[in-house]
């Protein structure tokens, strides 16, 4: 009988220690506004969001606003970050996504940075537009956010 209790406790312990999965929530254009610039999320294709470990969410209309918010946020409080993929409009993990930048790409804040799930999709998009520069998440931390045209 004792070993059953032992297994049960072990399972509970393992469940408790496992990493929490954070899910993105869908944009509500009626009520969601960007935490940084206050703009309504009218263009969902460019939206980003940050999920705190305590379950709170913050929405952003542009990846540049999320990066600005991140500067003043404790990293230990951040559970996950998501941004809309340009190809299929699905949420992608901000840390693993591939980014492209061009001053001619329109985004709600005109920062010109778009996200893709894979590098291939990003390169394909650049080829179709005839313009762009590949970036990774670490590049966004030092990126000169602002309008460039």
């Amino acid at each position, binding site marked *: 009988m004792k070993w059953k209790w032992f297994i049960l406790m072990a399972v509970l312990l393992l469940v408790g220690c496992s990493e929490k999965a954070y899910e993105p929530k869908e944009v509500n254009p009626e*009520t969601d506004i960007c935490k940084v*610039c*206050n703009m309504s999320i009218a263009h969902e294709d460019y939206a980003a969001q940050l999920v705190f470990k305590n379950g709170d969410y913050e929405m952003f209309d542009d990846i540049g606003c999320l990066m600005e918010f991140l500067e003043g946020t404790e990293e230990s409080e951040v559970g996950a970050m998501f941004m809309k993929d340009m190809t299929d409009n699905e949420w992608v993990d901000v840390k693993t996504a591939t980014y492209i930048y061009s001053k001619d790409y329109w985004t709600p804040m005109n920062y010109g940075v778009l996200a893709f799930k894979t590098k291939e999709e990003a390169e394909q998009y650049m080829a179709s537009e005839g313009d762009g520069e590949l970036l990774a998440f670490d590049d966004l931390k030092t990126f000169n956010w602002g*309008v460039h045209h």
Partner: protein
Amino acid sequence: MKKIVWLLLLLCITGASTGAAQVVDLQSQIDAAEEGSVIQLEKGVYEGNVIITKSIFLEGENGTVMKAHADTPAILIENASDVAVRGIDIETLGTGVTVRRSNEVKLSNINMRGVDTGVQVYNSQQLLISSLAIEGNAKHYAKKGNGIGIYNSASIELFENTINSVQDGFYIEGVQGITIHDNTVTNSRYGTHFMYSENGDIRHNMYTQNVTGLMVMMTEDIQVKQNDVSYQDGFNGTGITLYDTKNTLLQSNHIEGNRIGVSVQKTVDVELLENTFHMNQTALESVRSEESNTAMQNQFVGNLVNVRSDQQGLHLVNNYYDDYNGIDLDDNGTGDEAYVALQSFGQWMVRKPVYQYFIESPSVVLLNTIDKQTNTTSKVLLVDESPATMKNQGPTTSFQLQLPQLVIGLVLLIGCVVVYRRSVRI
């Protein structure tokens, strides 16, 4: 009998042919017209999606309708100079008018109903757009275009337009030198939305029932005067939002019934002068802003919270506050004690807007009472050292002697006295 039947049939055919609208191919008329000519359009229905690439004055009389498909703009003006379009009703589900790389273009008295986007202007200069009536479709504002969008252009004047139910009434991006006056924008996301622009003059407009009346972002040298910004009262309703702006003047605007009257965020050198803030949930909020921002001689009446800030970032000078309790012994119109904005709950509301729903709850009333006691000792607060004790009553009439009226009055008076004396003598 047969003859009568044939006659009736003939009459029916004739009647049907005259009753149906005759659709005129306008593009061929434009192509045939000479540079600088005037094309007068008689009342009727014209086939749309026309392209204008030369100097032309297109004028329709009352009842001129253009029907166009939604794939391309109903009227496209491209690489042209000195073009005017006036007096046309455009029927399309897409874009009404697009102007690209053109100069000296005038659009006036154009009506559009159910359009996705009204007018779009790209890389153009010297435009006058006036007296347009633009009614967007019934979709959510996230799913439709702007009323009038101006991109990377200069020297623009937009006036006396009426815009309803679009994404942004006026969307201004990368524009240098623009005047927007005497327009009305309702039921849209933003009444006017500035991005990355310079030198704007916004006067005498009415913004009501939008998410935000006026949204100014990353823009320099803007003057906002005598606008009526009332009842942006939805969940995120804000009268005027300034975000990351420099050198902005807000003067003599009437800001009433909004969730937030004016929100000043990340800004430098904002001057709020002689505005009236009536019955807003929060009249004025300052977020992450520089201390160079000043609010002077404004009137705060009937607002739940007059001023709040997440830090200092705002100088209050000689404003009238209806919740000011001080006295003015020397009767100079300025209170003898400083006005201190109730801050604790105001700051919480800046950080967590949902706290607005607890305003005037017993616990918040208690907090405000404690605040009043604390405010007398603390220095790190929003303080107006010279609060006005009387509302600005508007211009007063000074005494002026009207000589003709005085003479007539005296003559009448003397006449009355003479008549009275004579009557008494009798």
